[in-house]
């Protein structure tokens, strides 16, 4: 381990060469713009700009790509907050509170919160990535299909309360709708096409980005136009700055979000998305004013934003130590490695120290550049919402539909976006929440996949769950999450003092459910042991 310091130094020397600085800067600027386009998240952004970097030498190219990666993440949060149109699945949650904040004239604070939380979590989690990556890499290996399935169940359990004040039945209905949509397309497990009606376009399923663009951007514009007379915000630029109180309010959520993001983000698959959902749920549960969530709470932006940036770093743990991509974007980056003639794998850190450490040091640099660029820009971007709506709405629609097209270079995405715009409008009118639908759509296919894999592993026998302690623990947590509100109520009704109920179990459960953060730390502690 004594080589770590030398390696870090080597990394910074590599990343801070003038040429690489420039490429990193170019990457973050390009990435921010791509990320701001709805529908274009970091995976697509990196993929789109990959050809641009092919003429550079490998280290400069990878540094630029990493810059694009981080830039996209920051950019995706901007469109999430300003026009409720997330660039990728990991920033969906940011819109839950970011957009209401923007609507009430606090766009500047919401954007600044996202930048600060992202920066803090993004830079601090590089330290465990650099020093402890080999130790953490074992964690991902402990998560096979049964554990992943249990984690999805936990995710689903946490989302039931996401209705934003509306009824739980409506939330559940929307989650079920999302799961139903997720079954369209070629089933990877069997290769059979389901609900495609002979349409080639449907073979690929209904991608969640088209749905998100429809439900959020298109439906929002329709709803505002339908309501009529909506006024643009009138906040002055100087009222869009963060106050000291705002900063204090987001410090806890940022720390918690960072921890959750790093731990969950290491898991391959939906790491960053799940992490942001968990972080949001935790903030909602630990908050003294949970009723503010969904209506514009800064912690509701800080937690998920810290989580998704920490997760972006964590995704590099399996990528660099095992050669296994930790996320969609790192999968594309691994592809880039191969294009450059580099062989990712367990030996990568040892065989290519300059490259690996230079890359990690450039993460630092990228985050720093993004903070310097985006923090002053936050109030400026926030002021965009002062544009007259007769100009702003067509612009939002245009940008959203370009994003829908750009996802896969085909009109199909645009039609999908428009169709879900109509669906979203109807949902909006009758108070059906969109968030559970999105999560159902994202988690539905993952749940199905991991359940089938678990069943295949056991030859159709699901009792193998009982041999997997981590999975059982996660199931128990999910159960607690679902029952907690009832248990708390029951305990309160039975005796006024909430301490020491005869059976130890329920009281403990209720206590741990109140603080989601504790759940995560017990989780990680048990895995270490």
């Amino acid at each position, binding site marked *: 381990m004594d080589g770590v310091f030398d390696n870090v130094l080597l990394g910074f020397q590599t990343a801070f060469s003038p040429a690489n600085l420039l490429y990193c800067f170019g990457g973050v600027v390009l990435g921010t713009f791509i990320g701001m386009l709805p529908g274009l998240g970091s995976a697509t952004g990196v*993929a*789109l700009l*990959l*050809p641009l970097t*092919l003429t550079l030498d490998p280290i400069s190219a990878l540094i630029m790509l990493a810059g694009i990666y981080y830039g996209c993440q920051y950019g995706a949060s901007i469109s999430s907050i300003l026009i409720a149109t997330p660039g990728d699945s990991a920033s969906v949650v940011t819109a839950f509170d970011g957009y209401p904040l923007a609507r009430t004239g606090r766009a500047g604070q919401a954007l600044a919160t996202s930048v600060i939380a992202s920066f803090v979590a993004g830079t601090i989690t590089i330290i465990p990535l650099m020093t402890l990556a080999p130790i953490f890499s074992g964690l*991902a*290996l*402990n*998560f*096979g*299909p049964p554990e992943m399935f249990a984690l999805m169940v936990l995710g689903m359990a946490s989302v039931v309360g996401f209705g934003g004040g509306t009824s739980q039945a409506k939330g559940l209905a929307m989650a079920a709708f999302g799961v139903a949509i997720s079954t369209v*397309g*070629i*089933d*990877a*497990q*069997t*290769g*059979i*096409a389901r609900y*495609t009606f*002979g349409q*080639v*376009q449907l*073979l*690929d399923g209904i991608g969640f980005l088209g749905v998100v663009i429809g439900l959020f951007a298109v439906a929002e514009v329709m709803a505002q136009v339908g309501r009529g007379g909506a006024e643009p915000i009138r906040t002055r630029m100087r009222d869009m700055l963060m106050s000291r109180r705002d900063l204090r309010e987001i410090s806890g959520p940022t720390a918690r979000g960072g921890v959750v993001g790093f731990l969950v983000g290491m898991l*391959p*698959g939906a790491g960053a998305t799940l992490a942001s959902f968990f972080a949001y749920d935790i903030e909602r549960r630990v908050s003294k004013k949970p009723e503010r969530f969904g209506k514009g709470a800064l912690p509701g932006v800080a937690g998920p934003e810290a989580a998704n940036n920490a997760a972006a770093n964590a995704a590099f743990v*399996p990528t660099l130590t*095992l*050669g*296994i*991509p930790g996320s969609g974007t790192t*999968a*594309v*980056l*691994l*592809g*880039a490695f*191969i*294009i450059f*003639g580099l*062989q*990712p*794998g*367990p*030996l*990568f850190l040892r065989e290519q120290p300059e490259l690996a450490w230079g890359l990690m040091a450039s993460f630092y640099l990228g985050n720093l550049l993004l903070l310097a660029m985006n923090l002053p820009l936050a109030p400026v971007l926030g002021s965009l919402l002062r544009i007259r709506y007769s100009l702003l709405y067509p612009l939002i629609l245009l940008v959203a539909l370009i994003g829908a097209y750009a996802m*896969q*270079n*085909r009109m199909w995405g645009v039609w999908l976006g428009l169709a879900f715009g109509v669906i979203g409008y109807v949902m909006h009118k009758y108070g059906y929440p969109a968030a559970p639908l999105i999560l159902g759509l994202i988690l539905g296919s993952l749940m199905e*996949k991991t359940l*089938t*894999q678990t069943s*295949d*592993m056991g*030859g159709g026998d699901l009792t193998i769950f009982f041999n997997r302690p981590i999975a059982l623990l996660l199931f128990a947590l999910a159960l607690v999450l679902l029952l907690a509100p009832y248990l708390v109520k029951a305990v309160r009704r039975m005796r006024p003092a909430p301490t020491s109920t005869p059976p130890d179990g329920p009281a403990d459960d209720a206590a741990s459910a109140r603080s989601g953060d504790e759940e995560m730390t017990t989780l990680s502690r048990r895995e270490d042991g």
Partner: protein
Amino acid sequence: MLGRLLGRTIPETSVGRRASTKRPGAAPAWALAVALAAGLTGCGGSTAGGGSGDAWEPERPVTIVVPFAPGGGSDVFGRALAKGIEEARPDIDVKVENRPGGSGAIGYSFLLSKQADPHYLIPSETAGVALPVTTDTPWTWSDFTPVMQIAEDVTLMVVPKDSPYQELQDVVGALKKGGQVRVGLAGATGLDAIVTGLMEQDQGVKYRRVTFDSGGEIVNALIGGDIDTAMLNPSEVIGQIKAGEVRPVAVFADSRYEDAPLDEVPTAEEQGVNVSFTQYRGVFAAGDITDAESAYWEETVRKWTQSPSYSKYLDDNFLRPVKRPHDEFVTYLKAYEKQLQGVLG
């Protein structure tokens, strides 16, 4: 012949040319184009092998349609091909367009809509034949023009480093004794699933199949102990093999690899399992193009396959230099499709 003549004259100028075609050096590029055109028509008239008479050349920029997302094997192939075409024909512009979706179905459907337009090529592999066998697609491979096969990719069976299985017969033997062996597959209709199916047919055994989305997930599950064995392309797992995390047990091809570290891996046939099934990598053009257009592309691709950039592409991706010109490629694809129908249909 025509190709060899041009092949000799062009590479010397091509390096400087590629830099100068970008903008200001229009004059030399133009001059070369004229010279090239003159050379083409001149040779076409004098050689008997020219076939259908009139030579053809692209009139517009050429698009390579990659039916998968950037970064994957087909994308790498498409970009290497684009570079190769630009080297072989310095005067034409080639752009790469990713049209991912539907396990490749979207990209091929796009090419289907470009019927008779010779300005579109697709880097094709097994999915181009297998997908219509398993799924209801509006096209089959015979709707396109197979230009040339340029390489083949091979499946390796790998096990974790501490696995009890040392050779292929250990695995098959365990299955025959009624044991359970879990095999990780990427998709239900991919090359690995096909090879597994053929092995089951050959040996009369049954694996426990666990299907994942990608090679990366499979490697994760293999090292994590969730599956016992996996069937992967060398490029997907070479890093883990070199690090000693996984051991290759068999290669499903007619012959072994020539270079270390894979040269020590015996073929399945050597181990008494009669399965050899590889993934082709080849170029398709749109359907209904003329013979002259088809010949132009065949010649261009052939030229690329004689260049250093081609060898580098193969080496970087652990591909084998198996080339089949148009006629042989078509015969091969027919047999390939029949075999796939036997396993997947």
